[in-house]
């Protein structure tokens, strides 16, 4: 991702992947377009040319009908080969909800999802505690800050084995956790039974981030909040910083 020759303001280029069954693509598109100095384009699941982008968003939805397991089939779509290569070369990738599930199935993030502990689809506003405010995706937040972001999923029960969890903790890859209003990670504040209340993790290199909550749905006061703006602000800041 070389941008060293850029002088003045170059718009930041987001790409929003659209799989058959995606349904949060327009929300993500609108969210990033609400920031000045950004461009965004939709990427169809059969596209392969994405190397011009600064950040790829895998949005929420039910890719390929969520058949077999959530994200299991999307992983084999043509664009995912390009997304993987893009990430390997240091490109920024964020997976939201179904996008997170796809990143897990693709092995681009550690762990796996199973059904919510309560077996129900859960759709509500939850509190998140920012565990690591130094990732590319969270510098706009303070460490320990509590933000309100909605969730809407049936398979958000994050699992990883003991060794994996130890590695996540050691490398500070747990980015956000479910918590109550006071920031405590109680069982009651865990909406889906996720191990260690984990709501979002990043990869070791810090350029791939996945989370179940939907920051793109809280980027405008008109629709209920702006606590999600920090995620996109952080991305924009990171890319702009790299370019200077």
């Amino acid at each position, binding site marked *: 991702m070389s941008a060293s020759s850029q002088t003045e303001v170059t718009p930041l280029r987001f790409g929003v992947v659209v*799989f058959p069954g995606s*349904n949060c693509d327009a929300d993500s598109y609108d969210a990033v377009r609400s920031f000045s100095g950004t461009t965004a384009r939709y990427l169809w699941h059969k596209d392969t040319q994405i190397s011009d982008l600064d950040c790829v968003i895998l949005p929420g939805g039910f890719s390929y009908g969520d058949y077999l397991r959530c994200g299991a089939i999307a992983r084999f779509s043509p664009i995912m080969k390009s997304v993987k290569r893009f990430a390997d070369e240091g490109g920024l990738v964020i997976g939201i909800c179904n996008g997170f599930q796809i990143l897990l199935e693709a092995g681009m993030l550690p762990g*796996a999802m*199973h*059904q919510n*502990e309560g*077996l129900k689809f859960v759709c509500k506003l939850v509190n998140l505690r920012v565990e690591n405010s130094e990732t590319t995706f969270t510098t706009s937040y303070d460490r320990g800050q509590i933000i309100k972001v909605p969730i809407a999923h049936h398979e958000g029960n994050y*699992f990883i084995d003991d060794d994996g969890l130890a590695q996540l903790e050691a490398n500070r890859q747990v980015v956000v956790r479910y918590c109550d209003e006071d920031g405590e990670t109680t069982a009651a504040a865990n909406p889906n039974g996720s191990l260690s209340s984990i709501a979002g993790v990043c990869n070791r290199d810090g350029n791939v981030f996945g989370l179940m909550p939907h920051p793109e749905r809280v980027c405008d006061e008109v629709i209920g909040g702006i606590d999600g703006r920090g995620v996109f602000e952080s991305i924009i800041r990171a890319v702009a910083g790299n370019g200077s």
Partner: protein
Amino acid sequence: MNCHTEYRYCHPEVARVVILSAAKDLLHGSITVVKGINMKAKIYITPKAGILDPQGLTIERSLPALGFEGVTNVRVGKYIELELPDGDSAGKAVDEMCHQLLANPIIEDFEFELVPE
């Protein structure tokens, strides 16, 4: 891109085509529809031992209400049947399919049997 607006849900046929092409990738193109002996693979996928199984737990808790006491360790998995050409590599192929697509080895175990169709 305007084609995305046509898809607010995924038609099973779209998923079928992607699965088939993924399966062909896995088998390095060796899937061919041949007129010959086919084997049926019966594949059982279950949650790994020790991993929380919310469905199994719920069923376990509901059985006593029907009068079935003492039932423990209910685990809910998947059963998949598929047919493929017979040959020395059939077992290896099914094993690969399970590893790469049909099961998620992080949370699921699988076993299968091959029977003549």
